[in-house]
């Protein structure tokens, strides 16, 4: 395995503090900076990236704001976890193979490619078969970027955000933090201070991105917090579909992941963002697993714009995630399609916020929760119709499926309507896999376990239908793997 070397503390970096001077970083040979967080670490991350001063300053503002929050993570969600020692985490780790900056897959460490293959993500094959451009993020740093040329020809910028900060500062500066300000919430603030890398995408006016864009995130080094930062801007009349797949290998200690994703759609633009998240959920007894505290939000800034979130969440010990839409432009549309599965001791508190500001804005929420083992799944959603949102509409449907006697499903919908012309619908169900359905399938010869999966898949159909085809296949396979041993 690549990037497996043990993180080491460099004696000299222990001296780091706010007096940190530029250039100090060149003395550091190791790719992992010491544990803990302080202004020196924030500056170090920024300088490792060769960031301009405005970026460093933004990080520091976030860090100073974060300090005021006194290490108090939000506790309102229905998830329980021990206090995290933020000084006991690494905030930056780069795989060794990044040193020389591979330009194509051929230059990527073959062991890295194999690691992806083991996870069932054959980059090569994906490239060939699906024509997807892959920006693989391996322990915080992008190591492979493909299909750059075709994208360049279309005028689409798709690169690591660290590169975008260098090459396209005007766009990054304009939009970074414009949807999720650094003061937004504890984890988003932390991310703003220490984000390592992530993806940047800009689609110019009138351009339909010629391929689905894809990034695989993966957490690898033990104890490394991963702080991805993604920014996607769809200019007027453009369209982009972005797929994000997440996997992490088995780890004993809990790992913190606090990503921030910001989407901006200008007039008549559309962004479709799909996620498949199957990070390590911990073992059967609830030991280990990823803590996934993610802030994802899109802003339909322009008229007639549309942002659509589709997520299939089967991994992580804790999922705390609410991909949301701010519907600011008139006639803009927000969508949220979600399947969240919890098994064993997993906990998921996930949902969305649809903030209607513009006139005739429309939102759709379809949330499917599956709880098995001792898993606890919560849908938490907010639909807010502001006074300005004349003629706003929302349709919400939340369904929960329970498997076994020891799991839980919870639904916490918030609805705030401040304009009387709004039209809202809310439907919710909670059910079990019915014995009649199971018998019916079995009476036609289908083995019990397959019958269970068919029923569960059927339950998720409305959401899977929103995923690109290959992703839908993978998603249904993922459900099967995640439920192994609980059905049948």
């Amino acid at each position, binding site marked *: 395995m690549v990037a497996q070397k043990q993180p080491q503390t460099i004696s000299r970096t222990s001296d780091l503090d706010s007096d940190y001077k530029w250039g100090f970083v060149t003395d550091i040979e190791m790719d992992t900076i010491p544990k803990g967080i302080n202004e020196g670490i924030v500056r170090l991350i920024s300088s490792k990236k060769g960031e301009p001063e405005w970026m460093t300053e933004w990080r520091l503002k976030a860090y100073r704001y974060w300090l005021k929050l006194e290490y108090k993570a939000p506790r309102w969600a229905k998830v329980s976890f021990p206090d995290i020692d933020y000084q006991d985490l690494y905030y930056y780790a780069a795989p060794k193979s990044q040193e020389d900056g591979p330009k194509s897959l051929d230059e990527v460490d073959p062991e890295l490619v194999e690691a992806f293959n083991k996870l069932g993500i054959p980059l090569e094959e994906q490239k060939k078969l699906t024509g997807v451009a892959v920006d693989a993020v391996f322990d915080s740093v992008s190591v492979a970027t493909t299909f750059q040329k075709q994208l360049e020809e279309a005028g689409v910028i798709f690169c690591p955000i660290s590169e975008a900060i260098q090459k396209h500062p005007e766009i990054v500066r304009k939009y970074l933090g414009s949807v999720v300000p650094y003061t937004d919430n504890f984890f988003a603030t932390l991310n703003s201070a220490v984000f390592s890398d992530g993806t940047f995408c800009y689609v110019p006016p009138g351009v339909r991105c010629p391929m689905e864009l894809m990034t695989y995130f993966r957490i690898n080094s033990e104890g490394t917090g991963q702080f991805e930062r993604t920014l996607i801007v769809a200019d007027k009349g453009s369209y982009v579909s972005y797929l994000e797949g997440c996997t992490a290998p088995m780890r004993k200690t809990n790992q913190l992941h606090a990503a921030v994703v910001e989407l901006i759609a200008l007039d008549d633009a559309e962004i479709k963002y799909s996620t498949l998240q199957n990070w390590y959920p911990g073992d059967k007894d609830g030991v280990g697993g990823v803590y996934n505290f993610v802030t994802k939000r899109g802003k339909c800034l322009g008229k007639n714009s549309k942002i659509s979130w589709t997520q299939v969440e089967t991994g992580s010990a804790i999922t705390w995630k609410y991909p949301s839409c701010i519907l600011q432009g008139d006639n803009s549309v927000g969508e949220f399609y979600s399947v969240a599965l919890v098994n064993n001791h997993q906990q998921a508190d996930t949902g969305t916020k649809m903030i209607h500001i513009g006139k005739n804005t429309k939102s759709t929420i379809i949330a499917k929760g599956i709880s098995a083992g001792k898993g606890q799944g919560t849908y938490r959603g907010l639909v807010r119709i502001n006074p300005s949102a004349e003629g706003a509409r929302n349709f919400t449907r939340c369904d929960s499926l329970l498997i076994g006697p020891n799991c839980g499903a919870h639904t916490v919908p918030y609805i705030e309507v401040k304009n009387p012309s709004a039209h809202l619908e809310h439907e919710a169900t909670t059910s079990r896999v*019915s*014995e*009649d*359905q199971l*018998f*019916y*399938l*079995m*009476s*036609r*010869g*289908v*083995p*019990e376990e*397959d*019958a269970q999966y*068919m*029923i569960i*898949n*059927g*339950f*998720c*159909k*409305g959401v899977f239908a929103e995923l690109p085809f290959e992703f839908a296949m993978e998603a249904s396979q993922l459900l099967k793997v995640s439920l192994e041993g609980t059905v049948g």
Partner: protein
Amino acid sequence: MEQGTGNREQGGAPPLLEVRGLRVSVDDNEILQGLDLTVNAGEVHAIMGPNGSGKSTLANVIAGRPGYTVTGGEVLFEGRSVLAMPADERARAGVFLALQYPIELPGIRNREFLRTALDAIRESRGEAKIAIRDFNKLLEAKAQELGFEADMLKRNVNEGFSGGEKKRNEVLQLAVLEPKLALLDETDSGLDIDALKIVSEGVNRFRGPNKAIVLVTHYQRILNYITPDVVHVLIGGRIVRSGGRELALELESRGYDWLRDEVGQPA
């Protein structure tokens, strides 16, 4: 055992279905009280009887539906006891139950449902999975015979189907899966006369020397279209009389009370 069929065991082969002294309870109520029934390949048996006599229970127990407690007796399919087998295993062995109330399967398309079932059955016989193109051909041909709109194959199983459509869908499954034994649990109920004809034709097409049909029904109406070899009357959890086609007509005109009186069962 009084069975009016002449087509008994041939050459030592066991009957397709043999039910011996079957006793079944639901929630401590004994529904079947020592029922005997022998069905040979090539035969069509009709089981008639008043409400609550145990007709549906018999069909469901043979198919392996949970919720019934077998307290005595045996069910042999091709000479093998099936009582310990789960429903899917019985189905793969060749038992098919057309449900009285077909179940809706949200998110599972009719086409996908049937192909999965057919592949499971083929796999158990050591056959390869059916090629998608062959399956589509087969399905569309069978669907057409039953007057299905093409769009019903794309729809989710029984979801939003009318009562008649659901029953026709059961017969479509029968036609595609080609079991050895078809148990039809009131497949005729709720059908108008045109639908009844279509369904009956479908069942008749299924008939063959290696297959058998057990038709559970309230009314002799369907027997105008599907001619039974044997008619049984089930009262009080037992078969109290077996006969030919004429028995069904007699029941139609006289009801069940006279039989109850004869066998000493309270109404």
